[in-house]
């Protein structure tokens, strides 16, 4: 075992918890040639001195900040999904392209919305994100839940009001419910 320099900080006796060790490691900048808080294998017991507690609090704040910085991108990425989960503020029903009749509209001009996803001829598409209106969104489309038919499309989606929206500039409007 290499000899430790005389001015190397020594770990407080009786420190065994990971919190206490972290506090000690963080609070003690190791001098050149000193081991960085490496445990020496001695059996330790926990000692909560006021100094250790203060160091622990400071380290806790730092750790919390680090945790926040590390997880922030993931949290930001998850936010649109959370928005998508909340759903669009759009009435469910049959939507047709503006200018098309509700009765007998061509298949390509129709989209049904069930409150969660859009459907045309059994192909269901769901917005992965509902960020700013008019943004280009990744839309996952699947036919009858068959994963082998999964396609990602891009829609520039704009919610006009609860009864109309546009995709890539094409305006769809809600048809009245037929008896």
């Amino acid at each position, binding site marked *: 075992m290499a000899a430790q320099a005389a001015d190397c900080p020594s770990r407080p006796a009786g420190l065994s918890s990971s919190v206490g060790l972290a506090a000690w490691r963080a609070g003690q900048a190791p001098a050149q040639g000193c081991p960085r808080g490496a445990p020496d294998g001695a059996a330790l017991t926990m000692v909560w001195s006021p100094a250790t507690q203060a160091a622990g609090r400071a380290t806790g704040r730092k750790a919390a900040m680090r945790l926040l910085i590390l997880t922030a991108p993931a949290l930001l990425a998850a936010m649109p999904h959370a928005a998508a989960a909340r759903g669009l503020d759009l009435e469910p*029903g049959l939507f047709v392209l503006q200018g098309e009749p509700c009765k007998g*509209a*061509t298949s*390509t001009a129709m*989209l049904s919305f069930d409150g969660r996803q859009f459907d045309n001829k059994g192909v269901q598409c769901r917005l992965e994100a509902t960020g700013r209106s008019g943004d280009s969104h990744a839309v996952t*489309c699947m*036919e009858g839940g068959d994963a082998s038919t999964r396609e990602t*499309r891009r829609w520039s989606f704009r919610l006009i009001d609860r009864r109309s929206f546009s995709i890539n500039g094409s305006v769809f409007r809600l048809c009245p419910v037929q008896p």
Partner: protein
Amino acid sequence: MTPLVAAVALAVSGWFGAIPAAANSFTRDAGSCDLNQRTRLTDLCPNGFGMPAGASTQGMLVRHANVAGMIVDSANRYGVDPRLALAVSAHEGRMSACAGSFTGVQGPMQLTQATGRGYGMDRGVLADNINGGMLTLRDAIVSCGGDRNIRCLADRYNGSTEDQRRSWTSGVSERLASLNQAGQAAPAGCDGQAQCIMGPGDFPAGRLPVAATPPAPAPTDVLVDVGQV
């Protein structure tokens, strides 16, 4: 100099103004009338897929002469009433190769990926799109005990929401009635021949389509010999 520039600009604008701009690039006929061709929809539709411009059923037959001929041939091949097949295509995608919905359904029969695959067809190929749609329609007819019950066919062919099936029923019924009108000649297919009659395809809405065959000379036409101009 300025009058010259103005004159050139006027001439250029007049020239471009005379060129009929494509009002709707999703209205596109096939290059030939042959069910054996392996033309991909993407090759026919460089501008992508979308909602074809509106037209009457008869107008679609003129505009998409080759696609209509292929539909009739496919219907005859699989024992489907050609008029019903044309009515379905007219409702589904206005007989256009470039018809497409925002969910990715494509082609004159609006065939979905899984349905096409179920029949061993590649829905991205025009002939497969038509044949796959025809096989779906044939099986729907068998399942419905005949082709009279359009509502039943809607359930089998469209298979989407109740609203869409209802719309399909009325849309196909109207198109079929228009094709069945007294005096309408039975639509002809290509009978496996690549007739290469170019349908007018793209033309601005509101303007008359270009005739597939040139009209006979009118009495007032001035005949000009070759070399005179």
